């Protein structure tokens, strides 16, 4: 694996990670995101419908929480999780947890970490964890780590210290086990930066983790509501400053467009794409503009449209969904609203996704009102494509030194 930076500007890193995957042919652009999956499948989407999306990232995120309980099956299968789930062409990153589903705190010990699957709690010591990874054979995997320091607010220094100590012990143990495993030679361990909100502990975690032969770094514990993120963003800059330039930095739990940009400016390279999934689950569609260089005629039309929609979404609305108590953001529209009943426009004018090329807001509204499964499928297609398009625009903006324009455009749409 080789990370080449083409540009570093205002803290943002633009570049490419090459020589990825079992054959060494894979590559990924940074800044970028990973394809979010649940139990090894993009939510709502079969291979056929996933293929319809433009700009799907080269790497998909799998979650151990959804796969650990299938350890036995995968061991017997022998050929690795990529083939098992029907995604052999994807690069695969295995995270511990599902960013959408925070797990109950209090289950990390000095010897083990637990994840929650459909069948209940799966407790993993370093040995068991590595055995599972051996069955999965992902390209990258998040090392076993203690991510609970950031669960309580404010973090106690003691708890922060423990999270760093434990995570380093797990890392060293896992690295030793990796040396002994032929199968896992082809997989890359991603070191996890912990330490809660305590600066010294974060710095210690970064410096110590960087000493180990990890392939990249996961910045854990920075997720939370917009308020906590602000304080954590300050920490983030200090942390990434301690990390080597030639290894990728992933962050978990950050998905909102404005927060993504903030993190990129603080040296983060890779993000998850659970955010478009959350938007889908609340019956919403991403409509925020990332066209920082629109043609003048369109600007007027689109601005009028956007302004109107921003006015209607003055306060953030709480929409309870089955999988998350997430609030609707100003980056989206709620297709359940009555005003879309006779709206025959596509979700986003000019969007070239399958949903926008073939269907109307009125149709999506109907599907939501009648609780039809197709609503989730079509919204997921659009929301993924829109989100991947956003990341593409970030890279383009960085390339042409126009990130400030994009940032301002996004800021105007954030409420």
């Amino acid at each position: 694996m080789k990370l080449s930076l083409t540009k570093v500007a205002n803290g943002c890193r633009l570049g490419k990670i090459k020589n990825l995957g079992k054959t060494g042919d894979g590559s990924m652009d940074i800044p970028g995101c990973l394809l979010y999956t649940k139990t090894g499948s993009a939510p709502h989407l079969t291979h056929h419908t996933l293929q319809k999306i433009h700009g799907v990232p080269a790497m998909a995120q799998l979650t151990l929480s959804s796969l650990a309980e299938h350890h036995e099956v995968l061991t017997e299968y022998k050929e690795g999780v990529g083939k098992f789930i029907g995604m052999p062409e994807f690069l695969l990153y295995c995270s511990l947890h599902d960013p959408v589903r925070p797990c109950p705190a209090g289950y990390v010990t000095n010897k083990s970490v637990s994840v929650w699957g459909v069948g209940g709690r799966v407790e993993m010591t370093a040995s068991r964890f590595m055995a599972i990874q051996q069955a999965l054979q992902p390209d990258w995997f998040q090392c076993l780590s203690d991510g609970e320091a950031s669960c309580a607010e404010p973090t106690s220094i003691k708890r922060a210290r423990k999270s760093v100590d434990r995570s380093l012990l797990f890392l060293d143990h896992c690295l030793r086990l990796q040396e002994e495993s032929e199968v896992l030679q082809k997989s890359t361990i991603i070191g996890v930066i912990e330490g809660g909100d305590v600066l010294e502990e974060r710095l210690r975690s970064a410096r110590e983790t960087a000493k180990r032969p990890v392939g990249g770094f996961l910045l854990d514990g920075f997720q939370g509501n917009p308020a906590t993120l602000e304080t954590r963003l300050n920490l983030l800059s200090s942390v990434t400053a301690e990390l080597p330039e030639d290894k990728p930095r992933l962050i978990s739990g950050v998905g909102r467009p404005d927060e993504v940009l903030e993190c990129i400016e603080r040296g983060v390279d890779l993000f998850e794409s659970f955010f478009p999934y959350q938007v889908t689950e609340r019956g919403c569609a991403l409509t925020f503009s990332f066209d920082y260089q629109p043609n003048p005629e369109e600007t007027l039309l689109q601005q009028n449209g956007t302004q109107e929609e921003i006015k209607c979404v003055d306060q953030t609305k709480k929409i309870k969904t089955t999988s998350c108590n997430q609030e609707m953001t100003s980056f989206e529209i709620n297709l359940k609203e009555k005003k879309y009943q006779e709206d025959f426009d596509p979700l986003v004018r000019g969007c070239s996704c399958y949903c926008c090329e073939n269907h109307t807001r009125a149709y999506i509204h109907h599907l939501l009102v009648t609780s039809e499964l197709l609503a989730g499928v079509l919204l997921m297609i659009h929301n993924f494509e829109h989100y991947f398009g956003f990341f593409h625009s970030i890279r383009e903006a960085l390339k042409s030194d126009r990130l400030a324009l994009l940032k301002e455009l996004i800021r105007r749409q954030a409420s």
Partner: protein
Amino acid sequence: MATASPTSLESAPRILRLVSECSRSRARAGELRLPHGRVATPVFMPVGTQATMKGITAEQLDALGCRICLGNTYHLGLRPGPELIQKAHGLHGFMNWPHNLLTDSGGFQMVSLVSLSEVTEEGVRFRSPFNGDETLLSPERSVEIQNALGSDIIMQLDDVVSSTVTGPRVEEAMYRSIRWLDRCIAAHQQPEKQNLFAIIQGGLDADLRATCLEEMTKRDVPGFAIGGLSGGESKDQFWRMVVLSTSRLPKDKPRYLMGVGYATDLVVCVALGCDMFDCVFPTRTARFGSALVPTGNLQLKKRQFQKDFRSIDPECACPTCQKHSRAFLHALLHSDNTAALHHLTVHNIAYQLQLMGTIRTSIMEKRFPDFVRDFMRTMYGDPTLYPTWATEALASVGITLS
């Protein structure tokens, strides 16, 4: 479509072109010519109740080879309503389906779904389950809604009684259905664009059914459905009514047997002379984790499939079978990712369409009876396990299962 001479008795368009007929049984292979393209028969039509084939896109359905599917007038009439659909350029425009659509009249749902419905000569009076409003679904109103939907085949409003009902109600419903057919024909505003089918009623009474057949075949419609079956009646009575119906229905018009979709039923009823079928079963059972195979079905949620790394059916060409194992689908079915359901919906529709295609090819190649024998052996294994009704029904049209 053929242009009609206003003075001819038989001015309804001949939408069915027969390509081949089985020399033993009553099976026929043909081609329907409909406004949105040709449809090979015999055909199975998946049911997309509310302007969607559940979790699969119009493009996926098209890729599976489906050229006609169903929409439900009752559901769509309530949500989103005919006016909105008309604004959206009809049901085709609303759901963006380029091929053919068949809508039923709303009659069956009126009776099966709505507890507080009342049938009078006027129509069916009922309360909307969504806003409690009282509405009357008359033959005229049903046709009006279906005209707005713009489907290629529309169904008359019939007076539907459950096949387990006996007594004078059955006779009343049969005669009323004839009168309602005439009212539908009179109310139909777009005969050039939409083909109105009659629905033969009469329950399980041979005399009533014969009367209905005699009367309805005097009417000038492009096709006939065999209704009032596929309810709770015994298979024994069921096939006899189908045979009676196909005996008396014109050969040059399509026969649509409503509500039939189990593989064995499809094969037998093709032998009995039916051309078109619809059923929620394949798509509904998919959403419960059941995959259809030539030997029956696989309940993929069951533990026995946990480590079964084979595809659902090695002979199946559908995207699900091309890419996925039973083991993966088992794991996915136990998650909350809806993709699992879509994989099975795709496969089950493919199974049904592939079955019909195989049936059709065997008719055209003059080996339909052999096909039937192979099918039964594969499905049931031992001839002693063949359902009696199927053996008898097939025998009645000259196909013996050894």
